[in-house]
């Protein structure tokens, strides 16, 4: 037995490597980051090489993965659920073009929003794009399914969506691996009728996709990821993805024997579903995420024999667990010790000594002198500036929205209009918004908090920092005298207040770059230097 203890995310990475991928493309995002990191950390020197550095955003990542597939090689693209919104244009259209080399998109959803702005369910995207979706329930199954997903992708010539959720991505279990498959040879296809999506080609390709749907359902019927676990009684359960684990945990703990239909591959296997429905009077539908398939199974006029998230049997929002399932099945809850009243919340906070603290100290001082002191911000560690003791920012919506929302507010007449965005978020989705603001001559101050890394997700390489950021701003057209740099340190507080005040009161577009390395990455570099010597 040769088991490795892997996070679900790492099991995907190893499954893809053993399937013979030639590249992984990704932008960091919890809970998907560890897929790519595992490949970067463990396979940097592998031959033939597996390309693995970070992309600027999920859209560039997806398109590059599609390009690698076009060239005949296998590629993996990874992102968190909201990243698929960014990559959605490429994702949906890649279902129309189809693929050449195997293409698998691993998308990690975050129900209960542990580190996210929403808990959207990527299976809805899979259905929308009419692509096969895999949703294994264990780390071992993730490994095996990822490996096989590339074969599936090449056999039906479509991308495959692999969906997982936080709990599986961030839980370890023993995984047994098989020997690695060779990488594909370069074999780009010359097929403009397939890849040039002008209307006459797109219509034909769309019909190809529609024509494949029966086959996809047939594949689901045959898939080992979908199986009926026989049982007794008139009450059955359809358990999707990781919900299967909680259902089986409860079944084992309470010594129950209801039949369970495990679903780990979509589209839904109609015959399997029918066979469960025929043998049961009532069905509990357990899905981790939105009630995507509960809604479908209920139909528009509802079906009282179906229970799930939509009738309150299970909560409408949030992550599932065995306790929630047990309550949903009407099993008696045990009396448990309460959390003592003295236990207070301990929210995350900016690290002690973090440069963002000094930036917000300076910014808060400047903003206090205005009646209207709205600060538009973005997604990263600096979002923690929304909490006590800073209360320094007033928006955080989606990657890059700080600049564009501040621009819109400036257009509406709001003065001053200030945005705070990190280096990695700026190159992800902020640059185009800045171009809009420059073209419109919007009176706006953009503060780029450049800590030289993608910090919130654990310190990944950022696409452009330092002097490259300055050059990007210059290239986009920021005026040199209103492109300023500050070093956010306590000792520079007065100077930083002065610079920020000058630019925020300037009736035009200005950019202030606050440059100071993340203390976490700086400490890590120092440690690795010490242990290296």
């Amino acid at each position, binding site marked *: 037995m040769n088991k490795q203890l892997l996070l679900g995310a790492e099991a995907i990475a190893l499954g893809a490597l053993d399937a013979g991928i030639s590249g992984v493309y990704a932008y960091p995002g919890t809970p998907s980051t560890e897929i790519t990191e595992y490949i970067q950390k463990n396979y940097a020197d592998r031959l033939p090489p597996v390309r693995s550095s970070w992309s600027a955003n999920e859209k560039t990542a997806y398109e590059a993965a599609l390009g690698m597939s076009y060239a005949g090689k296998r590629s993996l693209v990874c992102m968190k659920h909201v990243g698929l919104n960014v990559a959605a244009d490429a994702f949906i259209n890649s279902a129309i073009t189809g693929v050449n080399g195997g293409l698998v998109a691993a998308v990690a959803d975050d129900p209960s929003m542990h580190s996210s702005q929403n808990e959207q369910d990527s299976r809805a995207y899979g259905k929308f794009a009419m692509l096969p979706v895999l949703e294994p329930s264990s780390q071992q199954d993730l490994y095996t399914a990822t490996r096989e997903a590339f074969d599936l992708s090449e056999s039906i010539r479509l991308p495959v969506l692999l969906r997982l959720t936080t709990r599986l991505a961030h839980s370890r*279990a023993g995984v047994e691996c098989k020997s690695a498959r060779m990488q594909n040879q370069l074999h780009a296809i010359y097929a403009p009728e397939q890849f040039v999506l002008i209307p006459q080609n797109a219509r034909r390709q769309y019909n190809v996709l529609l024509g494949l749907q029966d086959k996809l359902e047939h594949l689901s019927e045959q898939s080992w990821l979908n199986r009926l676990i026989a049982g007794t009684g008139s009450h059955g359960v359809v358990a999707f993805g990781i919900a299967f684990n909680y259902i089986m945990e409860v079944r084992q703990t309470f010594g129950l024997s209801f039949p369970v239909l495990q679903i780990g591959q979509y589209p839904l296997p109609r015959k399997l579903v029918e066979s469960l429905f025929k043998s049961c009077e009532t069905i509990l539908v357990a899905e981790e995420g939105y009630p995507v398939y509960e809604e479908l199974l209920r139909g528009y006029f509802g079906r009282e024999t179906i229970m799930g998230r939509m009738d309150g049997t299970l909560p409408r929002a949030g992550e599932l667990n065995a306790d929630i399932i047990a309550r949903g099945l009407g099993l008696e809850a045990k009396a448990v010790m309460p959390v003592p009243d003295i236990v207070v919340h301990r929210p995350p906070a900016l690290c002690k000594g973090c440069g963002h603290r000094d930036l917000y100290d300076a910014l808060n001082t400047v903003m206090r002198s205005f009646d209207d002191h709205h600060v538009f911000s973005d997604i990263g560690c600096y979002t923690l500036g929304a909490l006590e003791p800073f209360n320094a920012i007033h928006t955080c919506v989606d990657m890059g929205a700080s600049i564009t929302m501040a621009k819109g507010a400036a257009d509406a007449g709001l003065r001053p209009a200030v945005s705070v965005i990190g280096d990695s978020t700026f190159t992800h989705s902020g640059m185009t918004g800045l171009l809009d603001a420059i073209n419109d001559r919007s009176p706006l101050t953009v503060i780029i908090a450049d800590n030289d890394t993608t910090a919130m997700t654990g310190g990944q390489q950022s696409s452009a920092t330092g002097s490259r950021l300055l050059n990007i701003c210059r290239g986009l057209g920021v005026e040199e005298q209103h492109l300023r740099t500050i070093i956010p340190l306590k000792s520079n507080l007065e100077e930083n207040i002065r610079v920020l005040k000058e630019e925020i009161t300037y009736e035009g577009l200005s950019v202030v770059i606050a440059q100071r390395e993340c203390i976490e990455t700086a400490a890590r570099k120092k440690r690795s230097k010490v242990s290296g010597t």
Partner: protein
Amino acid sequence: MQSNIILAGVGGQGILTIAAVIDRATLQSGLTIRQTEVHGMSQRGGAVQSHLRISNREIYSDLIAEGTANLILSVEPLEALRYLPFLSPEGMVITSIDPFINIENYPSIEDILTELHRTNRPILVNATELAREAGNSRTSNMVMLGAASRNIGIDEKQLEAAIGELFHGKGSDIAAVNIKAFRKGQELSQTQATAT
């Protein structure tokens, strides 16, 4: 055999290192394991926990159900209390009593100790002091693992060997100080157990 352990602490306190040692020892014992981690926003000084499940049969849920943990092992006393609903009626709390105060409304340590004493035979550890005695104040997580070593469900010698292996790459002196810290914790829990 089934062991359900909640590891608790504050982001950056090293609970994942405790988990990594137990993981390694478990895998070598041929038992099944599931171990959750917290990555992302909460790691920045927020409350973090790891659910660790060890069994000789298949484990379905990565998460521990309420009222079924046989151990809450915490490197911070307030954090030990946060997960009490998971503790089984026979379960116990083993925690460091060194508070990590990064919030303004942190309760008084007396109140925390009162609540801890309401649980079954808690083992309360001056982890930082013992770590310092071992030679490095940053090894308090290994002191805590030592203090809990009889309640993990894994052979204590196997745990110690796993510490040696895990820290091997960082130098033999680092491995030695962590093992020393582990033994300090072991000794303390033995003394407390005989005292009660």
